[in-house]
Each structure stands twice: as structure tokens, then as C-alpha cells.
């Protein structure tokens, strides 16, 4: 039991270690001092309470929410690569609602903004879900492609219907003060962190303690066995998981608008929807693990800014570490699978 629990954690740590080693080698090869650069990265992410709370955790919030959404779909074997698009759909809806709720009490306004964001995420993913259920279109492709549509929709919104009243910049007016999340005094850390952690715990309970979570896992691991031996309506279960996945990613967009930017603009997300896939995979789709892996990737993003400021290393260099971590996790998965396959009895002869 302990070995079973410990394995994924050790794998994740090894992967993260590998990521930093490769990053250090890359930095050295490009003529930077890896000690100085990584030191700057560490300070940027954890150097002070401000760095941790206002840089790392603020970036971790959308990563956790979107990571949970991705994990929910992946658990059911459905590859939702479209969290980025659902995030944007949520952000557009949140902005539109947020501008119009100035007269509402704050709690109600925030609730309305988040609901709109989650619903928009569901609507955005409902297209791939319908295509999958009706025509068997692979959701990998349809969700991915809708990301580009969502980015274009944001561009249209901030230069058209949602553009600020002054019509100067391609951005929206800020949302009403009633729709903004409370901040922790002296920092930029907003109430979204509570939502992210609470949702992670709820999802963990759903995944590990309920029939629904079990059926989703079975459907994801083996649709045939789930259907034949478990009597599980696999397509319905998976379609439902995809819709909830879209809701979480959409909510992530709403939380970002109501907690961080207050306005909608292009490139609102530095690729949160894609990094969220890494967050979910590093945590092996475990919601509690996603709190940690989301924080780690938040720290990498925050540290990258510090590295750029202090050591002059382009922030994108951090993507080397991110990519290495993911490759290491996937490699560990493949190796574990091979080891398991070796111990399983050989197939029946034809």
C-alpha cells in the first residue's frame, strides 16, 4: 500500500529533478551561469512572501482549476486538449456579465460571473462532445482546434462588442467592483485559491469514493471491460465528464477575470490551458496532487519572470524544464506499463 502510494510521488520528484538538470545544462550551454539563473528563478518563485503569494500562487490558481478540468476528462479516457479555449470562453462570458452587475451585491455578482464562465465553458466543449457522440469525431482534434476559434473570438470581442468605451485599446472595460474577488491584504493573492483547493478536494472525494468516479475510471481504462463486465454506458459517462471538464476550465477563465485582470484582452492566458495538461499528468490525474503540481508550474512561470529580470535569461527558457518534466513523466508511464506487460501472461494463440 505504501509502495503503491509512494511510487507516483517519487516518479514526479524524479521528473522535476530531471527538468531542472536539463534546464541547467541548457543554460550553461547557452552561456548563462546556471547557478545564478536558477537562483533567480527560485527567488522569483519563493524568495519572499510576496513572490510566493502574489506571483506563484496567483499563477497556480488557473493552472489548478484547468488542471482539474483536464484530469476529469483524462480520467474518462477523453483527451480534452481544449482547456485553453474553454478558459477563453469563460473569460468572455465573465467579462460581459461582470460589466453589467455593478448594482448587485458583491456575493451575487461574483456568483453570476462564475456561473456564466462555467456555462460558457460547457457550451464551448459541447460542440466537440456532440461531434464525438453523434459522429465519432475524436475530441483530441475538435477541442484543440476550438482553441484557435476561442482566441479569435476574444480578438473579435475586445475590438468589437466588448471593447472599452473609449475605443482606444483592444481590451474591455473593467468589470464592476462588485464582481471582483477579495484580495489578501498586502498581496495580489485572491479568493480564487480557496475555490481551487475546495474543488480539488471535492473532485478527489468524487473520484475515489463514489460510484460515478469509479465508473469514470473504469470507462477510461478499458471501455470494453467497462461496457461488457460493468454494464457502464461508456459514451454517456465520458460525455458527461467532458462537459464538467469544460465547466471547470470555463470557471478558470471567470476566476482569472474576477480575481486578477478585471478586464478582457488578447493573450490573457500565457498558455494556461496547455500547461494544465502537464499539471494534470504530473499529478497522475490525482486532484490533490494537482494542487501541488499546479503550484509547481505556477512557481516555474513566476520564477521565469524573476530569471529574466535578474539574470537576463529569456523567460521562455523555463519551457525547457516544463517540457522535460512532462517527457520524463510520460517515459516513466511507458516504462511502468512495459514492466507490467512483462508480468502479464502472454496472449492466447490465434
Amino acid at each position, binding site marked *: 500500500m505504501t509502495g503503491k502510494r509512494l511510487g507516483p510521488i517519487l516518479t514526479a520528484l524524479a521528473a522535476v529533478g530531471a527538468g531542472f538538470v536539463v534546464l541547467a545544462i541548457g543554460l550553461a550551454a547557452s552561456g548563462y551561469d546556471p547557478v545564478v539563473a536558477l537562483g533567480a528563478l527560485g527567488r522569483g518563485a519563493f524568495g519572499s512572501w510576496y513572490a510566493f503569494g502574489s506571483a506563484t500562487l496567483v499563477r497556480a490558481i488557473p493552472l489548478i482549476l484547468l488542471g482539474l478540468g483536464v484530469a476529469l476528462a483524462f480520467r474518462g479516457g477523453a483527451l480534452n486538449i481544449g482547456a485553453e479555449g474553454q478558459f477563453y470562453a469563460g473569460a468572455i462570458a465573465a467579462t460581459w456579465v461582470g460589466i453589467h452587475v455593478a448594482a448587485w451585491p458583491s456575493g451575487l455578482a461574483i456568483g453570476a460571473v462564475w456561473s456564466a464562465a462555467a456555462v460558457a465553458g460547457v457550451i464551448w466543449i459541447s460542440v466537440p462532445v456532440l461531434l464525438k457522440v453523434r459522429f465519432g469525431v475524436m475530441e483530441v482534434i475538435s477541442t484543440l482546434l476550438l482553441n484557435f476559434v476561442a482566441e479569435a473570438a476574444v480578438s473579435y470581442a475586445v475590438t468589437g462588442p466588448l471593447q472599452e468605451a473609449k475605443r482606444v485599446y483592444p481590451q474591455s472595460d473593467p468589470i464592476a467592483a462588485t464582481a471582483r474577488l477579495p484580495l489578501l491584504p498586502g498581496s495580489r493573492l485572491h479568493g480564487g485559491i480557496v475555490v481551487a483547493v475546495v474543488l480539488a478536494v471535492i473532485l478527489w472525494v468524487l473520484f475515489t469514493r463514489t*460510484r*460515478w468516479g469509479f465508473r469514470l475510471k473504469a470507462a477510461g481504462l478499458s471501455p*470494453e471491460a467497462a461496457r461488457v463486465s460493468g454494464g457502464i454506458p461508456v459514451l454517456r459517462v465520458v460525455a458527461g465528464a467532458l462537459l464538467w471538464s469544460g465547466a471547470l476550465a470555463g470557471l478558470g477563465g471567470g476566476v482569472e477575470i474576477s480575481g486578477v485582470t478585471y478586464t478582457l484582452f488578447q493573450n490573457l492566458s500565457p498558455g494556461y490551458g496547455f500547461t494544465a495538461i502537464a499539471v494534470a499528468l504530473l499529478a497522475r490525474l490525482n486532484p490533490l496532487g494537482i494542487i501541488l503540481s499546479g503550484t509547481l508550474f505556477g512557481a516555474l512561470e513566476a520564477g521565469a519572470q524573476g530569471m529574466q529580470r535578474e539574470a537576463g535569461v529569456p523567460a521562455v527558457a523555463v519551457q525547457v524544464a516544463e517540457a522535460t518534466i512532462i517527457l520524463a513523466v510520460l517515459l516513466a508511464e511507458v516504462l511502468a506499463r512495459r514492466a507490467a506487460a512483462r508480468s*502479464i501472461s502472454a496472449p*492466447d494463440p*490465434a
Partner: protein
Amino acid sequence: MSGDEPVLELRGISKSFGSVQALRGADFVLVPGEVHALLGENGAGKSTLVHIAAGMIPPDDGTIRIRCVDTKLRSPRTARALGIGLVHQHFTSIGALTVSENIALSMGPAGGRADRQSLSGLPERLMAGLSLDSRVDRLSVAQRQRLEIVKALATGATILLLDEPSAVLAPSEVDELLSLIRDFVARGGAAAFITHKLREVFIAADRVTVLRRGAVTLSGRVSGQTEATLALAMLGTAVPEDGADTTRPSALPVRSEPIMAHFGGIPLRGGELIGVAAIEGNGQRKLLRDLAERDSAAGSVALVPEDRTTEGIIPDLSISENLLLGLDRDPGWSRGRWIDRTRARARTTQLINTFGIRADGPDVAVGTLSGGNQQKVVLARALERRPAILIAENPTRGLDIRATSFVQDQLRAAARAGMLVLIYSTDLDEVLALGQRVLVVHAGRVTEAPQGADRQVVGEMMLGLVPKRQSGSGER
């Protein structure tokens, strides 16, 4: 013909997959100018033999001689270079590419172009209607299969091996295929094709080799054979060598239990152990699955599926979770929407003991268990559902003797406890040993074998050689 040196000679070929022995010292000889049928039930080892001859899998033991030269076939490429072409049971062409692109692909990098000129050596009949420029996914099934043969011949094959080529074809297409094979042989080639249909042997083959449980039971000229001799060789006459209990259960007393289900129109009652015999592809699978899909009026139906590793278990999940599959609504395992993990694990531990599953506790991944222990998990789950009807498809396939007799005992016990138990097995001995009544499915129709019918009678019914009695004649 008989004086010719063989082009392909397999001697004493043995091959095991894990604990399953697919071939036991099988011999196979192919001479030029002949069409040779490889006959046998599913799992008899025909495909394994052909795959070994084509260099797809190495034999554990035995020798391969090609044109009288001892050869080690290291890879399919080696075999291809020696003129051996294999037509797979499943199509291997790429749908999005054209016919000529697929042919070029099969010839490899050194193969050159696949245009009208380079393919002009191929029989015209083979190429008829096969436009080189059409996309393969626009072709009919028969055309796609023809393309598979073209691909084999385009690499210069003089020995053609076909793995159950008629399985996907309509009857008229089968005749066309067989005459194409005869055509190829008439031009000096040699061909072997796998089948389990006697008709095809008599139409197209010069010689026939029959496999049963990995051993050759008959090999000789088709002209000396009758359907009965081939059927007997296919289904066997001897007592099985693995020591399984084959004593036929005695005839049943007249039963008064209510009718629980109908199988192909034949009424079945609780407490009965029904053996279902059929040769693969006669519609038995659909009949069994239809029965398994809907719970009958008498209660639920539990299934022990044939394909254990893909349909029966989820290897990555623990024993406890695999049992939960299908039991997740059972009050012993869940409370409403919540899974009762404590009770589930405790119940799993009990079942591990009852069924003698060799595992270190309920949290062990099922994928790490042996095939026999995996099957015990599947059986434990099916019985834990306390179904009214239990359907077991090939329940002992790939199991060792002890696991086999354990599973068979459990099935007998289930029937004694009042369940209606249906056992379908490709192993006729198992059907006869277990079934108090034996139902035979041939061409989608179900007939009941007379009480006490022996393997020859049942075997002939399976092959459709006995005039069919009316469906439903088995009621009493």
C-alpha cells in the same frame, strides 16, 4: 505432383505462449502446384503455424526447410525474400492511399514503382476491377482482399499463405477467391489457406492438413477424405490428454422449474447446465450476447466473457476494483452513490479465499495475476452477483489443469444451486463433459443434440451435416 520436392517443409514445430501450448510438434509440407488447406477449430494452432512459416514468430522447436534448404526465418522480410507471401486475416492496407501506393509500400524501399507495366506479370483476373489509382477505402471488402493478394504476389511470392481468407467474404466472393488461388497454383506457385469450412476444402484443395490442439491429426490428399473423416480429425475422437473430466453427465430427471430463458427458440430452465457447441462464426456469439444484454424476467444475467483481458478485467485496477465492476450497485459493495470501500475490501478478501485466488491481498493489480487467477476473479464477480442466468464463454481457455477443473466445478455448483448455466466452448470435449443438454449453433440456428449424443454426432451437427431438426424440438 507427388514426386516433386517440397517447397516448404515444417517439421516438429512447437510453440508456446506463456502457459498455453499453441503447437505440439506439428508437421506441414507444401509441394509446388498444390493448394493445401489447413483445417481446424479456433485455437487449434493454424494461424500460429502459418505465422511461423512467414517468419512472423520464431518457433520454440522444430525445423523449417524452404526448397530443401534448412532455413531460419529471422523476420517476415527474410521469408519474403525467399518467396513466401502472407495474406493476413485482417487487411493491412492503408485506406487513405491508392492501390498502387499500397502495393509500392509492400514492396519496400527497393521495390520500385507499382505501375501498370511493373504489375503486368500478375494474372489479369486478379487485377480485374482493381483500379491502381483508386483509394483503398473506396474499395469493397472483396476488392481489398484481392489487393492483399496482389501485394503478396507483387513482392515475387511463389508460396502464398492465406490466413482464413474467406472469413470476411460473401459466399459468391469465396468461390471467386478460391478460383484465383487455383489460378495462381496453375502458374507454378504453391498455396496454403486456413479455413474451418469443409466445403472450401473440397472445392479448392488438393491436400489437407488438420490441426487439433496444436497437433496434426490428419494430413493427406483431399480425394481420399469424406466430410465425416475431416470432421472427426478436426473435433477429435480420443479422450483429451489434459486429464479434464469428460464423463458425460447422466440424463436429467424431468424438470419442473419454470422456463427461465429461450436460446434460439429452445426453452431453458433453472438448474440446468447447458453446453453450447458451435464452430466459430456461426452466430453463437451474437445469440449469447443478446441473452447476456438484457436481464430476464427471472433475474439478472451474468457473463464470463470470452476475451478475458479486454472484456473481463481491467489489468491496471486492483482485484477489489475489478470485482466492483458490475457490482457497484450491489448493497454489499456500495451505499447509494457511495462506494463502501471498507466492505468492498473485506468482501474481496473473503472471495480471494473462497476462490483460492493466489494474490497478496485485495489491492493487488489484476494484471499481475496469472491467467487462471484472473479468470477466478471474473468468475467470482459473476457469481457474486447471484444471477439467475450465468453465461460462460470459453471459461477455461488458456488455463492449466487445476484452474480448469476449479472453474468447471464452480459452474456445476452454480447449476446445482438453481442457476441456469450456459457454457459455450470451442473445445467440444468441454461442452460434452459439462453440458447436461447440448445445444448446437450452426449458421445462426440452434438445435438440440439428442441426449447422450457422442462427439461424432455433435460434431456433424456443428458442421451442418445432419438434417436439422426443428428448432424448439428440445422441450420436454
